């Protein structure tokens, strides 16, 4: 960070921190709006519930009546006598041809268990069971002591750690999760934890733990006879461009499946890169900045106007004696021809001196204004076109005038020079 950055940063922060903060009025306004939203939600919810209940009641009323008829009781809305009505068909509860009795399935499963043969589907179900336990870690609260603070080495990227209550080592801490994960996996899931001779510390940082989305797609891969891995990619809350990759390794240890390793990463997808090199764009913008400064920085004039032979009054331009020299002074940024087109209506050469005519808007030409955005494209190698449109009523007598600017900029001996310039003004 250079001097410029430091100054900007210091001023920006200084100003904002001194002047901008949430006031009590704003706080109460936010709370008020949230309360209103909740009340309106509750009202809407209750109203919707009431309406639905009424609809539901009306819709089931005929069935209630129907049932009453089946019980041979005449009902007010029926034209038939109860005895004439269809008799209820008794459901054959013993019809279980397609569904073997539950007991048989249980017996089959027990037999499989006894033979100790675990199908792939059963393993997968077991892994998902472990992952559900993993997900519950999000609600797990680590108790820590605010007063026992460990100053961490700045090189770790963290400032302080708080001493965890109840556990002295990572091993002890991870043992509470031993039904689904090993110490190695737990230490990675709870990163960053610090352990030293004094105890175990929780590092103060805003941290989020990746959840395994049980309902989303995942990939299960067999690595070895007793080793599997599951990977899953899901979208972040930040939008379409950030994805999370989760990776779990499952190993059977002493006849029990456990998560033995864990990893996560983020994947960011991006828009395509701009075709033009950033350095070239910087140079082109610099050139356009110079173009903007043509009437401010390049020449000086006399303080008072003199009367020319044609009777017009004009300022004498210092240090320039021919029109050619005047137009050519901008040549590192603006070609002589373009400069001549811009300036010729204001410039007069007389008796070896250069004069500049006063103008209503003082040497007006439309500036390139970065406020309004621009488009840049490469016409051919080393030749670019910059276009911009904006509304500006300041210089124009046309109300809501739209300015359309078009520059052709070429690389001439490593200088980016405006070699073509046109503009038009139209009514909005």
């Amino acid at each position: 960070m250079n001097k410029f950055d430091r100054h900007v940063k210091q001023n920006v922060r200084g100003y904002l921190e001194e002047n901008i903060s949430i006031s009590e009025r704003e706080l109460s306004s936010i709370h008020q709006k949230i309360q209103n939203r909740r009340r309106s939600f509750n009202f809407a919810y209750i109203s919707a519930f009431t309406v639905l209940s009424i609809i539901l009641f009306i819709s089931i009323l005929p069935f209630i009546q129907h049932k009453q008829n089946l019980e041979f009781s005449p009902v007010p809305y029926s034209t038939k006598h109860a005895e004439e009505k269809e008799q209820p068909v008794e459901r054959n509860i013993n019809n279980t041809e397609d569904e073997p009795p539950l007991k048989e399935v249980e017996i089959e499963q027990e037999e499989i268990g006894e033979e100790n043969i675990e199908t792939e589907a059963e393993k997968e179900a077991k892994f998902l069971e472990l992952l559900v336990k993993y997900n519950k870690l999000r609600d797990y609260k680590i108790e820590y002591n605010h007063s026992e603070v460990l100053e961490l080495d700045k090189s770790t990227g963290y400032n302080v750690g708080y001493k965890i209550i109840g556990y002295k080592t990572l091993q002890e801490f991870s043992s509470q999760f031993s039904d689904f994960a090993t110490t190695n996996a737990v230490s990675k899931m709870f990163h960053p934890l610090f352990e030293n001779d004094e105890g175990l510390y929780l590092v103060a940082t805003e941290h989020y733990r990746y959840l395994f989305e049980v309902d989303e797609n995942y990939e299960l891969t067999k690595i070895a006879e007793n080793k599997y891995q599951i990977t899953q990619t899901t979208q972040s809350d930040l939008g379409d461009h950030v994805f999370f990759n989760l990776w779990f390794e499952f190993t059977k240890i002493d006849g029990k499946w456990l998560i033995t390793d864990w990893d996560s990463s983020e994947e960011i997808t991006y828009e395509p890169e701009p075709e033009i090199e950033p350095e070239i764009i910087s140079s082109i913008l610099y050139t356009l900045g110079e173009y903007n400064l043509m009437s401010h920085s390049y020449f000086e004039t006399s303080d008072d106007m003199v009367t020319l032979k044609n009777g017009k009054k004009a300022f004498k331009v210092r240090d320039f004696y021919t029109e050619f020299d005047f137009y050519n002074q901008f040549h590192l940024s603006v070609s002589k021809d373009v400069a001549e087109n811009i300036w010729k209506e204001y410039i007069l050469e007389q008796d070896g001196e250069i004069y500049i005519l006063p103008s209503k808007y003082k040497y007006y030409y439309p500036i390139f204004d970065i406020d309004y955005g621009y488009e840049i494209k490469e016409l051919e190698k080393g030749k670019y076109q910059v276009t911009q449109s904006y509304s500006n009523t300041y210089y124009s007598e046309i109300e809501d005038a739209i300015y359309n600017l078009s520059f052709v900029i070429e690389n001439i001996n490593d200088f980016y020079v405006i070699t073509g310039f046109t503009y038009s003004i139209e009514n909005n």
Partner: protein
Amino acid sequence: MNYQGIQQLDNESHEEIINNLIISHGDELKRMAFLYLNDLAQAEDIVQEVFISVYKNLHKFNHKSTYKTWLYRITINKCKDYQKKWSYKNILYRAHNSSSNTNLQNSVQDDYELRQEQEEILQAISKLPAKYKELLIFYYYKDMSIKEISEITGVKINTLKSRITRGRHMLKVELERRGIQYE
């Protein structure tokens, strides 16, 4: 607030969460919005909208980002949406003039020149094109790493670096035009 604090909030009511988020991030969100728009009244409205939007969407938040980055992204998006409105230029002109009579300028500091300079810088930043401005806000005000900025904005790291360079150059030119030079 550290992550444990945030984590503990998970089980609390949404209003508790919102309240804690306002306390922990309200000021900085308002500052970011102000830096983006240079309009105090609008920055206040944006922050209110952000928290109401968070309240509405809290049940959808899957903890697949930090609350902080989520809030930053919503704030910047709200500012962008606001600037896209056709009436923005007019509103900016009016609001800026009116805001200059608010407590900002009434709370006159001894160092008037410093205040002027700070205001020029803030105005210059707020006038940068959106794609540079949001990056410079994170870069100058939030002091965030390139990776963090990349995550929030979705801009590729190389593109981001070049945009920051270009944005800085534009800012420098604009500040020089306003008579402020640091080099």
